[in-house]
């Protein structure tokens, strides 16, 4: 199997789906001649033409709103928000509108729209090129929210998202774009939305995570295995709907859980995971469920030294594991 990185996985998924289905089109800032600021659509303008690769004006509300309108008519737009930090102007259309269309029309209209956006930090992005806004969307019934961590997951899930009949918010961690490589089959494949995956089996403790942090957690699992701690690493992949079954079954097996994400802690995805465990696996718990998350500051600062303070790291995760195991 060829090894590719995450941005190439994203590019392939879009390319294949646009080739297959003329109703799929791409819209966003700089997606045309420029090929996207991360080159996710390099060459698309030449291949698919300006009707289906639309360099939008700098106006996210309309990028989302116009896409919704086209999707209401049955088209399958992929709308790119150049950075997740710039999704805010579009929230009225995404959270206010798209999420409620199918329910609000009693099932008559649906919005087969994918909102793609690079998110996350660790790339010297400062307050406004590092945000992790996934929890806002994951709180919203009517949306589906995906945060893949590997090229394989990114491609398989993005293809599913494009064929899905609902609005899907698809966050790609920009630090994984070139840094994370992995094997991807040459044959077409799809991954199910709403399913997490055990990325490493283990017996002693479950780490539940997603996005860039998956790789940190896998590193920790490897480090601690040598010390005799056998960690299970669960990658949520989809944040709405959450794979409650997988979470609960893993924790029932190990009896201990830690949740790790880069987004700030309060009301983050980790809170929901912890609450689910409290509701459904109470009797199986041998220790409190801890959360390792971004600190409660408004966003990740720019200077390297400050960025390092923000970012959860293997050290902090190891400390939480040790604390939980010692409980």
């Amino acid at each position, binding site marked *: 199997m060829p090894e590719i990185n995450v941005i190439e996985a994203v590019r392939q998924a879009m390319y294949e789906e646009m080739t297959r289905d003329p109703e799929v089109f791409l819209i966003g800032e700089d997606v045309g001649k420029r090929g996207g600021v991360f080159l996710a659509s390099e060459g698309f303008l030449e291949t698919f033409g300006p009707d289906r690769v639309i360099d*939008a*004006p700098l*106006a996210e509300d309309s990028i989302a*709103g116009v896409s919704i309108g086209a999707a209401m008519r049955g088209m399958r737009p992929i709308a790119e928000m150049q950075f997740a930090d710039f999704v805010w102007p579009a929230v009225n259309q995404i959270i206010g509108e798209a999420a409620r269309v*199918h329910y*609000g*029309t009693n*099932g008559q209209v649906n919005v087969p729209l994918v909102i793609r956006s690079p998110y996350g930090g660790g790339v010297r992005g400062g307050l406004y090129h590092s945000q992790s806004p996934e929890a806002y969307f994951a709180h919203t019934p009517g949306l589906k929210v995906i945060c893949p961590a590997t090229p394989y997951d990114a491609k398989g899930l993005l293809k599913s998202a494009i064929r899905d009949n609902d609005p899907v918010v698809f966050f790609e961690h920009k630090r994984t774009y070139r840094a994370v490589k992995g094997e991807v089959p040459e044959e077409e494949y799809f991954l199910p939305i709403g399913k997490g995956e055990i990325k490493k089996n283990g017996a002693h403790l479950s780490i539940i995570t997603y996005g860039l942090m998956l790789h940190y957690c896998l590193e920790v699992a490897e480090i601690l295995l040598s010390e005799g701690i056998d960690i299970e690493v669960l990658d949520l992949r989809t944040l709405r*709907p959450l794979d409650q079954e997988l979470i609960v079954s893993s924790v029932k097996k190990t009896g201990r859980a830690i949740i790790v994400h880069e987004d700030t802690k309060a009301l983050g995805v980790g809170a929901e995971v912890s609450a689910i465990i409290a509701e459904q696996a109470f009797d199986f718990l041998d220790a409190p469920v801890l959360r390792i998350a971004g600190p409660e500051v408004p966003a990740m600062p720019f200077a390297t030294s400050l960025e390092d303070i923000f970012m959860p790291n293997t050290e902090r995760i190891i400390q939480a594991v040790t604390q939980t195991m010692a409980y």
Partner: protein
Amino acid sequence: MANKRIAKSNKLNGSDLTNEDLLDAYSTMVLLQALDKRIWIMNRQGKAAIVASSQGHEAAQLGSFWALKHHSVNPWFFPYYRDLGIYLAAGINPAELMIGYMAKKGEPLSGARQFPLHGADLSKRIINQSNVVATQVPHAVGSALASKIRGEQIVSITYFGDGASSEGDVHEAMNFASIHKLPVIFLCENNKYAISVPQKLQMAVDDISLRASGYGMPSDVVDGTDFLQVYNATVEAAQRALDGDGPTLIEAKLERFLPHTSDDDDTRYREPEELQLAKQSSDPVAKFKEFLILNKIMTKEQSAQIDERAKAEVNNATNIAESAGQPDGDDFYEHVYATKVE
């Protein structure tokens, strides 16, 4: 598009409509007015939770509808909460509409999940998702984009108020439509108030249509209480759209006869004299009637018959709606998603 070329006004009545068409439109307008008045009464009786009346807006809604009905291929409508006329003209029957106002079982647009007139009727090509003012405007532009990408000869039209024009949504949508020369019509029903906020506190211009030139888009200001003016302006805009020449902004000046909604009390902010004057000078139904009678398109007897028929139809609708039950809620959890997650 040659086969859809729209004839210029060539009739004595000032449009390309036949006199029968005009009578048909007038009958619908009378029905609209009767229905609207009845619904208001039902609100006052506690039977309809909330109503935003179309009274004063009838000509803008029906004039534009008639233009698209006669000239466009399968128009798509993105109206707003005040556009009862669009729904009625599109063929949703008065009883169903009344059921919507009463939030009863069988409500056709949203299954009574939403406020009256919200939701969709795909068979009528109407979508009005939300109460959030102006959000439908980019939707209409997206619909027009879909038509353009697919190469379909379809016009999309969206309706909104003077208030809505202040929202960023409208700016972004107009700009986008004009860049891509999309087949869409922006019809602004300017009744000079956003709830209580008068136009001069909403904008520093008299005509919203002035915005259009900033987007490189043609515009038209019409007397929105005059059926034929709205009709003709919309015909022209539809032709432009079908010719690939892009969007048009039509500003229909008109008056809101009743408070903003049944929850509002307009005596708090509107002078009774102003309102009185508005009703006298700007009643679309009275104007249309006078025009038809003056031009001998309708006799007084015909007019009386039309009134009678409307009354009967509204009575009938009221009876049906009153006897309908509450939604039973069996499908409360349905339609959150169109693609189920296993």
